[in-house]
């Protein structure tokens, strides 16, 4: 039955015809992709058969590798191995033909068929563009400073709203592609609102924007949304993914970090206040080593250090030395990927196989943290953290905790007396008493053996209740303590005695090799000299040295990496799609000049993230429709829409879905910040923890925005997991977006949607009155930002015609929350 597979041939035929019809002139810009394809499809098999056994792998003969097209272009000691488009002048072909000695392959001979394929493939390649810099410039990227270019000239200048569009349109015009039509205002309102806040716009806001006919309506709409506190909650969450934010250690014990939420609130505030990104970096790496700020934000500068504390921590590690080394390795790796977009973590065990980062550089980077240790530092609450309220609540918990301790002691004394009485224990040394006391210490009921009559007594239940009250209050108390989950450094003059950093063989903690000093990665800094460490009173000064180097306008990566992250969240994919890997294994930028222009602009704007939003959202590129009249043709040429000939569809992420449902039901809690809410978890999840008990928060608290819900590493919220939330174990630069049946089940049958749909129904009835058609209209307007068509409205009315209004509209709510139109942003 081979017919189906002929389809690819059919596709090929159509594909080539389309290209020849519509895209007769493939320009040099696409040549790179074309040459890559030729390399992959034609050259690689030949090279693999004849050359790779010597010229492949990690140590190719004569330093001449054939694994990648870039290897061939870089060549060996005699120069590039191939001259694209010209086989006769290609060294590789000359060696294989025996025109140069020694004839290749050494001791063998290439088959005539392979030789013909080799020659044909090289000849069919596009010649390199003159002045493009060739292979060496390619391999330098992104280690050289961003290049300033003037936005390119374009033909359809009318389309251009800002310089972003010039860069995008220039590429499109070069391929003879046209951008999509602009999206309508309703679509834009929804797109921008979700993009910036993770929540649906109120129908009235959409109407106001749609009816605003004065110039600048769109800009004003953006400004209104940008100024809302919900903005920081959404964009802070993006950063928390990168910062592998969690409120517990992970691993088997998974101890809580009771005030880790303060770091979360710090991040949200930073975005809402548009804190300059360079300062944001410095505070997170070295807030305690910065000069005191004038604005009373000193607690912030300890809380911000939470970034360094968010990694997992194996509290029951067999070796303190290993634990320490794990901590340092994780810190070095996350610093490299979050701020610099470098996968330095690979160099932990060996020289980076793909990037010019020797293993030594990993440990030189690590040496900036060698004086650093985890510490819970006293940090009074700032005004922005609701200081007075926190103080009051803390005092309240102090008092009630004391009371609860006393009651527990009293019940426990009675319980033990009772145990002695019914078990006939004679004296204090009786083993059974010891065993019983151990049982009392078990944290989670599911792990309690519960054998013996004592566990059937009412007194036992009384004890359990008293214990839960005490434990719960103890947790609440700890979460309100004026403490920062932070770090501290060894203080001068002890710095010279800081434990030296060694290059660890294979990344193992017990195989120290050469000792190294703090230094920046040589390929970036241009030098392998140790860094200069400024004197800072009260600390080693190492982290601030690192932070200032990273947060410097001269760092070639920092600004590029951040603008690319912002771009990724707006457009669904970065200009570099591997947002945390700008190295050789990562993606190349689709628009390198644009990326550089944005990076320079970012620094010049005072590292203002909000300025980047204004720029990107204001562009005609962003305002395009997801629909393109010539989609069919364009999708063949550029299936991933890398050239941005239309807007990408975006699926709502886990937080946006949950928060939107709560917001539409009118029940989203307005409480922002503070200790996290613990959501109910299914019984099978709750049974899993041996070392703590999960006390869910009150239903009202649970309705806070998802960013304010408790992030315990071992307690995965099923809803969040089903919709691809970050898993907290490591820095996450881009969420997966899966499409699987369990998502449908969760949204159709799960508690969240079904509970909130009832409240949605009540809201709709309250706002629309008794008329069913009006109710349906209101439901559509709330959930989808538009009126239903007459047909849609009739279907909805008919479907639940027999049911009372509340039930009917609750079911309609469930349907609306499950719609593709609801889950996918146009």
């Amino acid at each position, binding site marked *: 039955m081979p017919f189906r*597979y002929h*389809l690819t041939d059919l596709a090929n035929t159509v594909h080539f015809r389309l290209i020849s019809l519509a895209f007769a002139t493939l320009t040099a810009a696409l040549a790179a992709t074309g040459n890559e394809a030729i390399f*992959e499809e034609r050259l690689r098999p030949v090279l693999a058969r004849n050359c790779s056994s010597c010229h492949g*792998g990690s140590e190719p003969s004569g330093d001449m590798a054939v694994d990648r097209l870039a290897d061939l272009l870089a060549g060996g000691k005699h120069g590039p191995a191939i001259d694209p488009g010209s086989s006769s002048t290609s060294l590789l072909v000359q060696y294989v033909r025996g025109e140069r000695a020694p004839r290749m392959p050494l001791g063998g001979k290439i088959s005539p068929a392979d030789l013909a394929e080799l020659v044909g493939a090289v000849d069919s390649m596009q010649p390199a563009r003159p002045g493009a810099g060739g292979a060496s410039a390619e391999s330098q990227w992104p280690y050289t400073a961003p290049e300033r270019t003037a936005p390119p000239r374009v033909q359809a200048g009318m389309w251009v709203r800002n310089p972003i569009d010039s860069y995008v349109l220039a590429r499109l015009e070069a391929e003879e592609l046209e951008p999509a039509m602009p999206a309508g205002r309703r679509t834009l309102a929804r797109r921008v609102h979700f993009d910036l806040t993770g929540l649906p716009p109120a129908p009235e806001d959409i109407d106001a924007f749609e009816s605003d006919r004065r110039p600048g309506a769109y800009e004003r709409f953006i400004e209104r949304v940008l100024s809302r506190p919900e903005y920081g909650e959404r964009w802070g969450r993006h950063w928390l993914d990168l910062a592998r934010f969690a409120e517990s250690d992970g691993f088997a014990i998974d101890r809580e970090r009771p005030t880790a939420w303060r770091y979360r609130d710090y991040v949200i505030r930073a975005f809402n206040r548009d804190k300059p990104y360079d300062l944001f970096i410095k505070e997170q790496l070295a807030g305690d080593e910065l000069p005191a700020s004038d604005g009373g934000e000193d607690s912030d500068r300890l809380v911000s250090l939470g970034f360094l504390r968010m990694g997992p921590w194996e509290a029951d590690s067999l070796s303190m030395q290993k634990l320490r080394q794990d901590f340092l390795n994780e810190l070095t790796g996350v610093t490299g990927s979050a701020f610099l977009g470098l996968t330095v973590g690979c160099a932990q065990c060996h020289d980076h*196989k793909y990037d010019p980062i020797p293993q030594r550089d990993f440990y030189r980077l690590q040496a900036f943290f060698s004086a650093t240790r985890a510490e819970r530092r006293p940090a009074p609450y700032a005004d922005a953290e609701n200081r007075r309220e926190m103080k009051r609540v803390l005092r309240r918990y102090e008092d009630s905790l004391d009371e609860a301790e006393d009651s527990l002691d009293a019940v426990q004394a009675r319980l033990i007396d009772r145990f002695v009485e019914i078990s006939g224990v004679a004296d204090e040394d009786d083993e059974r008493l010891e065993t019983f006391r151990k049982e009392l210490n078990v944290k989670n009921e599911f792990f309690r053996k519960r054998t013996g009559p004592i566990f059937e007594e009412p007194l036992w239940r009384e004890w359990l209740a008293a214990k839960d009250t005490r434990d719960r209050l103890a947790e609440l108390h700890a979460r309100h303590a004026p403490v920062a989950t932070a770090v501290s450094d060894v203080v001068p003059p002890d710095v010279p005695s800081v434990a030296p950093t060694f290059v660890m063989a294979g990344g193992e903690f017990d195989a120290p090799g050469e000792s190294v000093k703090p230094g920046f990665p040589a390929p970036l800094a241009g030098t392998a000299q140790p860094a200069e460490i400024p004197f800072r009173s009260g600390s080693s000064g190492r982290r601030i040295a690192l932070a200032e180097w990273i947060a410097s306008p001269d760092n070639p990566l920092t600004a590029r990496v951040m603008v690319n992250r912002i771009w990724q969240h707006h457009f669904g994919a970065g200009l570099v799609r591997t947002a945390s890997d700008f190295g050789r294994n990562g993606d190349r930028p689709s628009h390198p000049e644009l990326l550089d222009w944005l990076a320079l602009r970012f620094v010049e704007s005072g590292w203002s993230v909000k300025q980047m939003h204004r720029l990107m959202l204001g562009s005609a590129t962003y305002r395009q429709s997801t*629909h393109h009249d010539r989609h069919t043709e364009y999708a063949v040429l550029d299936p991933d829409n890398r050239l941005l000939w239309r807007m990408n569809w975006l699926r709502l992420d886990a937080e946006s879905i949950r928060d939107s449902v709560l917001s539409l039901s009118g029940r989203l809690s307005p409480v922002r910040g503070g200790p996290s809410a613990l959501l109910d978890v299914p019984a099978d999840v709750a049974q899993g923890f041996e070392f703590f008990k999960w006390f869910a928060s009150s239903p009202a608290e649970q309705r806070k925005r998802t960013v304010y819900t408790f992030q315990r590493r071992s307690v995965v919220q099923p809803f969040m997991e089903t919709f691809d939330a970050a898993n907290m174990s490591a820095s996450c630069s881009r969420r997966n977006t899966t*499409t699987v049946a369990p998502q*449908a089940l969760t949204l*159709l049958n799960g508690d969240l949607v079904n509970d909130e749909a009832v409240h949605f129904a009540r809201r709709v009835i309250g706002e629309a009155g008794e008329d069913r058609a009006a109710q349906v209209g209101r439901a559509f307007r709330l959930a989808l930002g538009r009126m239903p068509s007459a047909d849609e409205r009739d279907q909805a009315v008919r479907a639940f015609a027999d049911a009372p209004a509340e039930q009917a509209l609750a079911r309609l709510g469930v349907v609306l929350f499950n719609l593709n139109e609801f889950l996918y942003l146009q």
Partner: protein
Amino acid sequence: MHPDLPRRDFLYRSLTGVGGLALMDLLVRDLSAARTDGGSDPLASRPGHHEAPAKSCIFLSMLGGPSQMDTFDPKPALTRFDGTPMDWSGEDLTDQPSLFAAARKIVGSPFEFRRHGESGIWISDLLPDLWPHADELAVVRSVQADNGNHPAAVFQMNTGFTLPGNPSVGSWVTFGLGTENRNLPAFCALPDFRSLPFSGSQQWGSGFLPATFQGTVLRWNGEAVRDLKAPDAVDPGMAAASRDLLRSYNRAFLDRHFTNPDLQARIDAYELAFRMQAEVPGVLSMDGESEATRRMYGLDDARARSFGTRCLIARKLVEHGVRFVQLYTPSQSWDGHVDIVWNHGKNSAETSRPVGALLADLKRRGLLESTLVVWMGEFGRTPDTVADRKTKGRDHNIGAMSMWFAGAGIKAGTVVGETNDLGYKAVQDVYHVRDVHATILHLMGLNDMRLTYRHAGRNRRLTDTGGRVIREILA
């Protein structure tokens, strides 16, 4: 509206995404009178490129990299030279130069090896539950990988490539063959929730293939699939009306936005979800399993319960026509750098009994004739450890690993390939991970060179430029 939109619609759908498959399916349907249902269903069961015995595959992923010289590849030389210095200077196959730069010593296997069955296959006492099944196995001792880092190597084991973004084996197989039971996911992933593999769902993701071919995770503890039942409070008639309304709205939306293949994939996911509501409770119910069966799978042993339950679920799934089931040990579980006795011992306790039980159970139910079982890790291990380590550890090694096949189409009782005396490098009948993939496809009736999907301007394959089927193990 554009007058030529329908034509574009057809052309577009014929070229990309799910629509393309629908067309493929139509072509097949026209030619095959036997097909009565399925229509444009991308997961409808369809024949492969050739007749093949395997209808289903169970892939047992041993994350972390089991040691070949402690499981299936006895090396007396290691015992002889135990504790003596190891010399790597003549080798260039490793990608961890600094690891091998330090002084190292050879480590003899702490486990006993014996020949088993009529075939006399060597299996160590680490996996005693495989002894009775020696004559069912085809062991390949000479598989090589490309990258000695776990994340990259796990990607390669699952997708053929060391970088993310590529479809997993299970996705390719379901793309090629569809599935027999449309009421269950075609491709089920059963990870260990103590620790998911690196990159989580990307390991069973469909990469550039349409999302319909993604693996669906089933849980083993508690509900297999959460929220399977509609809330009790919802009247069945109302539930059905909601379903119809949802379908109708989604269809209309898709008609307006046919260029987004994800919309179709999500509609398919809903249809599957509706069918799963009826099917899953019966299929995954443990009620029909005898006490003896539960014990056989190790459900009475806390250590084996996780993998055992999942092996039992895997059997039930293939019994009900699921195409591809993949199990995972916890991330890096076999990664015995420090102490192979403790580490591999723990993994043995967790997996040996369940795997033995799975083979026995499949066999007695006649399912082994139509099910391919694959057992492998992401790479092998070294014959040596750092010189000053007091315990017996082994590091990563891409030069050789042992893995095995069992079941449909396998020449049982076979051993293929040899490693050198110290067991770190395949020297005879050397194969690569992509050859394992080519073999899996072959046994399921697919040709790895012909199973292609056009993406970003070229025809993509699981095996890239092609793999070699391991002919020696074919029945």
